[in-house]
């Protein structure tokens, strides 16, 4: 329910804005046709999505970006945040409400809940990217918009997913950018999506093929487009382990923005 409310709220916000130029720090993602990872709808038909164009942050939100937000929105500080919106481990890598060690400034913010990330994006007249928007852009590598089937793409992602998340990641925008001009979708951390819990992968990934739910019908493997796309399996599995108030040490976010029609 909360998701629909959030989407509705976001839509209202955006209808008021009028944008021509590409917002600073964002990239325009062209619309196109996209076959999602779980490509069967509830009736078992193949589904192909027509993606509208949208803007997406070039880089994940950093600790520096986030502390500016907290300074203006004190209710999202460590000491003031409400327990139903974020776990006690919220921003646990910060030493105080507005303080963290200098070297964290340009690293992606982590230990933030879905509610906090949503509030951050709304504060900028943006929203979290939907799962399909995120996956659409994340399917690209440096040279191709749709690289998910290639060995090098898979290898790179598997190698990263195979490493534990201990130790600090590097600053944002240090690695290669993909063909859209977007950085760090793979290789630094996980990211929240607006509708992260709508791919109905249950805790028991092997029975999910039986699920016939509306929206995106998740299925553990029988419904998957490409059984070799282990990266996608892992992302969907990861998302389904989350709740809106969870704050996790390898989970951050970036924002997206609708392109309003004049």
């Amino acid at each position, binding site marked *: 329910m909360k998701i629909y409310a959030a989407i509705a709220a976001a839509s209202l916000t955006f209808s008021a804005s009028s944008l021509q130029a590409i917002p600073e720090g964002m990239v325009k993602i062209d619309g196109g046709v996209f076959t999602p990872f779980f490509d069967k709808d509830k009736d078992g038909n193949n589904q192909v999505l027509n993606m509208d164009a949208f803007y997406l942050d070039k880089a994940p939100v950093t600790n520096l970006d986030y502390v500016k937000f907290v300074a203006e929105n004190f209710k999202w500080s460590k000491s003031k945040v409400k327990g139903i919106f974020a776990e006690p*481990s919220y921003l646990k890598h910060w030493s105080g409400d507005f303080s963290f060690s200098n070297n964290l400034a340009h690293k992606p913010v982590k230990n933030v809940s879905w509610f906090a990330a949503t509030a951050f994006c709304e504060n900028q007249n943006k929203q979290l990217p939907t799962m399909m928007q995120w996956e659409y852009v994340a399917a690209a590598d440096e040279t191709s918009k749709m690289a998910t089937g290639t060995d090098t793409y*898979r290898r790179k992602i*598997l*190698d990263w*997913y*195979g*490493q*534990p*998340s*201990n130790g600090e990641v590097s600053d944002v925008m240090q690695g290669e950018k993909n063909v859209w001009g977007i950085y760090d979708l793979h290789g630094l951390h996980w990211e929240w999506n607006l509708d992260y819990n709508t791919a109905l*992968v*249950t*805790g*028991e*990934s*092997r*029975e999910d093929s039986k699920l016939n739910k509306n929206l995106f019908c998740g299925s*553990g*493997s029988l419904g998957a487009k490409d059984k*070799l796309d*282990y990266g996608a*399996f*892992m992302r*969907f*599995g*990861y998302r*389904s*382990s*989350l*709740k809106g108030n*969870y*704050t*996790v*040490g*390898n*989970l951050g976010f970036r924002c997206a923005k609708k392109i309003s029609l004049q």
Partner: protein
Amino acid sequence: MKNFKFISLFLVLVISVTGCKEESSVADAVKKDLVKKQIVGEEISQLSYAPNVPPPITRDHPTKVIVNLETKEVTQRLADGVDYTFWTFGGRVPGKFIRVRQNDLVEFNLSNHPDSKMPHNIDLHAVTGPGGGATSSLTAPGHTSKFSFTAAIPGLFVYHCATAPVGMHIANGMYGLILVEPEGGLPKVDKEYYIMQSEFYTKGAYGDAGHQSFSMKKALAENPDYVVFNGSVGALTGDNAITAEKGETVRLFVGNGGPNLVSSFHVIGEIFDKAFTEGGLIANHNVQTTMVPAGGSTMVEFGVDVPGTFILVDHSIFRAFNKGALGMMSVSGTEDLAMYSGKQSDALYQPEGMMVAKAAVVEAVATNPAERVHLGEKIYQNNCTGCHQSDGQGLEGAFPPLAKSDYLQNKLNSIAAVKNGLSGTVKVNNHNYNGAMPNLGLSDESIANVLTYIYDSWGNSKLVVTPAEVSNVEPGGSSEIAGH
């Protein structure tokens, strides 16, 4: 469930046979059974790392057992010089051994370490219920999931992670064993050990140094680089060998995490007195090798009567000697020579017809050229036809012909070749041959006879060779014939 069925059957039988008089004793039996299942008390389960096993349960009643298990992603040694990032239950591969008693109420707390990249869950084969616990235990990094189950069925069960992609979570090391002891416990033994086989699919080949990542391609092809006991090459060898003393009984809890291969578990030099096939309750006796399916187990018991080192292998044998599936059990104590003597002697072995034995045979001596040809033919058949062929044609490109061979024009060269062997390039009838000819160890008489046979055959020059001529050619290493 089985017990209830059994009891109700019993009830029907008793009532139908003996009538209502017996009803009260039946009710007592049912009551007794309920009492047996009543949970009394609470305890925190003591878990153990392989190859150790928690101590046997001495309770005579079920209790509430709290199991706290942590999933953790760690980079550790897979083989000497080779690291791998394992996903673990408890920080090592295999996961910690869990020991409970039949009808215990198990409260399971699965904690996922905050540094984990992945969410994890647990499917315990000891659980009857959807997902074996997996539906209730998907856990994000930095969280703990709690669920409970009754360990109703005794046996030795595998547990593993079942988060998508399931194969990869298992391939990275997420499995272990849970033992549900039957009421009354298992028979007492002197030593108990925990051994779990599994395989690893690495980007590089076996032994390639450095950090190795998971190879999905090899996993799909079910072609592992490593097949190991207890999570790494050498985890059970040398100083890490399991131990026992002569005269003791040993019980091995053997699991197979897979993800793909079925194990042919064998202890070299032992026979399992009992093998509880597939981890169930029926013991097969006097078993040499027992199958352990992927996602399955077996429990074996045997007495150790002879000291020494006993090798544990997957008898699908290339896995043992080329991929790491090898462990050791070191048995100490005094030798029992009647049970196993050790090496008692080392004597020369001379099968009939071998060269060394030939010396004792009285050699036939030819008295004229016709006899030489006759005797020489037999020698030729026994020694020469493999290469030069029975028709003396040789094999093109490999062995030179003897029929109409220009090499035979020089009798002394011919004798030297047979007497001393040949190596290097030989030119015969304008073709070069590089194969070596061995020194066949023939007597002068035999050489004379076989050469006479060769000269007599296939349109050759009919020369006769005598033992005296052979004797005159210098013995030595193989003749180097250059520029012939």
